[in-house]
């Protein structure tokens, strides 16, 4: 069953379908939020709020984008709300603990992780959605609510920066 069919069942109030949808997306949304917020507690909140919104709003999904685009759009909205709260003074403690276990990961991988962490949030998003979620630019543009050209330029700058850091 594809994501769209599953979501249609969720829209009819099917709890088992919702559980399946949760299984498909929870880890991905968590990683997306973690990439943006770098804080596990907030990332967990984002998963919760996103999935509750998916349950409530499943009927409003129009099918004009991919289901994953729709869900990551909601997750992004939730994540930025957390970032705005931080700007208002509720400081989000950044965790340094997300770096891979040095015993398991080669030094190069730790460097990739650091290089991603140092990108501006919008570029981090693009990199995650393109390389981990395989979303095309048009879908990423929908998630971010910007023109496709903006996504392209964010990708261009992110790739340039990552290549520089990793080459040095």
């Amino acid at each position: 069953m594809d994501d769209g069919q599953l979501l249609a069942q969720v829209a009819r109030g099917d709890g088992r379908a919702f559980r399946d949808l949760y299984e498909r997306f929870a880890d991905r949304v968590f990683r997306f939020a973690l990439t943006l917020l770098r804080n596990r507690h907030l990332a967990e909140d984002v998963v919760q709020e996103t999935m509750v919104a998916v349950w409530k709003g499943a009927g409003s999904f129009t099918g004009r984008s991919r289901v994953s685009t729709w869900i990551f759009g909601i997750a992004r909205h939730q994540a930025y709300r957390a970032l705005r709260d931080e700007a208002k003074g509720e400081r989000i403690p950044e965790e340094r603990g997300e770096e891979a276990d040095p015993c398991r990961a080669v030094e190069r991988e730790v460097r990739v992780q650091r290089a991603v962490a140092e990108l501006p949030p919008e570029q981090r998003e693009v990199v995650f959605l393109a390389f981990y979620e395989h979303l095309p630019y048009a879908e990423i543009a929908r998630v971010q609510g910007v023109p496709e050209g903006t996504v392209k330029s964010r990708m261009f700058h992110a790739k340039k920066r990552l290549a520089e850091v990793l080459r040095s």
Partner: protein
Amino acid sequence: MTCDQARGLIPLYAARALSESDGAGLIEHVSRCTVCQTELVEAMQLGHELRATFGRLPGAPEGTWLSVAARTVGMPLLQVDLGSEMAGLSLNVGATRTGTPITGSLSILGREVPVLRI
């Protein structure tokens, strides 16, 4: 395809997010252009590393589902899963608080047999 156009598509190709026809056009260009070839190899290497890096991040904590369920389909009050210890036999009893019927099922080698409905 010009080098500029190719450069625009390379990150997408490396992210495996390019349509087949665009991909074919890109490969056609790259097979004749060593500069873009180098770019593509670098981008694919980077793509591979990024996927590995994101894939190594932890997943959502175990308890998250319970919090979500409590606000949507109803809180499971009881969950018994005998799982693999009994060779393909698992008993799953779920009870919810929000009017959803209390159900129980026995799963034998993956086939669900309802055993309880209140």
